[in-house]
């Protein structure tokens, strides 16, 4: 390959990189706390609320705190996809709109994924050191999830 061909290719790549910067995905930031938010429908201890917001809400709510690289494509696109998938799986902002049985199952899934360490995702933890859960954090979340699930099942219609 001649020098000039390499230069042409690098230039083409550079142009593509510049062009894709203008294709910004929509942001997941509603800014409001809905009536269906888990903190409105369940008795979530303050300490657990803080952990949920720091370690879970980025992908599991209508409000993502975006890192600087979200402005750089294709990183922003990847993030948008992760958030979309996370919200399909569990959206704390819309928790109250789930059926009672789905709420109970989600609480159980929270308990299990925290216990197994499958959540928060290790790839997320690499870039979000503040989202690492201490043993106390884990215990608090698990206890809350168990308690909330019991309450749901007792109040079943």
């Amino acid at each position, binding site marked *: 390959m001649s020098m000039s061909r390499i230069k042409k290719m690098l230039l083409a790549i550079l142009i593509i990189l510049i062009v894709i910067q203008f294709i910004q995905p929509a942001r997941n930031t509603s800014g409001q706390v809905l009536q269906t938010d888990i903190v409105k429908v369940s008795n979530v201890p303050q300490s657990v609320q803080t952990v949920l917001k720091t370690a879970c809400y980025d992908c599991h709510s209508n409000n993502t705190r975006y890192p600087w690289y979200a402005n750089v494509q294709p990183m922003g696109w990847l993030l948008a996809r992760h958030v979309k998938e996370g919200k399909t799986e569990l959206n704390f902002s819309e928790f109250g709109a*789930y*059926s*009672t*049985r*789905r709420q109970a*199952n989600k609480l*159980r*899934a929270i308990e*299990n994924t925290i216990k197994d360490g499958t959540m928060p995702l290790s790839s997320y933890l690499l870039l979000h050191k503040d989202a690492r859960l201490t043993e106390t954090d884990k215990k608090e979340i698990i206890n809350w999830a168990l308690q909330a699930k019991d309450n749901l099942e007792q109040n079943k219609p």
Partner: protein
Amino acid sequence: MSSVVFTACDNGNNKSDENAETNKRSASETTPSSNPNAEATPIEGIVSGYLSLKNALANDNSKDAANAGNAIVEAMNKIDKSSLTEDRMKLYADVEEDAKEHAEHIGSNAGNIKHQREHFDMLSKDMYDLVKSFGTGQTLYHAFCPMYNDNKGAYWISETKEIKNPYFGKEMPTCGEVKEEIKQ
């Protein structure tokens, strides 16, 4: 009984199409009866998908379990909700989203049988409520394994009295007991 097993082992679309046809015909030909068991049940496809899922898990076969999960989703998509009585419509609406989510997860987790079993546990509760309300035209058994989920226990529904544990598979095939016979 052999026809039951045949249905349960068949994940294909043809069978559930046939079932849907049969349901339509029997619904139009017979006058509405106060006895819900007299007519063919609209959830037959879902139940047969569930039973093949249960058998796949009891055999530790994650791939067959995934296929059965997908078959349940397909059967659920074919349900004509407007044809249901008010009570059943209400129950089905309550169960639908949850059950479909479990079936989808089971379908997309071939190779992760542990995760499939977690969803099977939750799906089994939905299925019990459906079966109790809709009837199935066959006698089913509500079985319980006391050891699953950290000894919290878990139920499943079976077409046979014989215990073949879907939660532990071949590791503990006979763990569990029948708690209820669901007569049709």
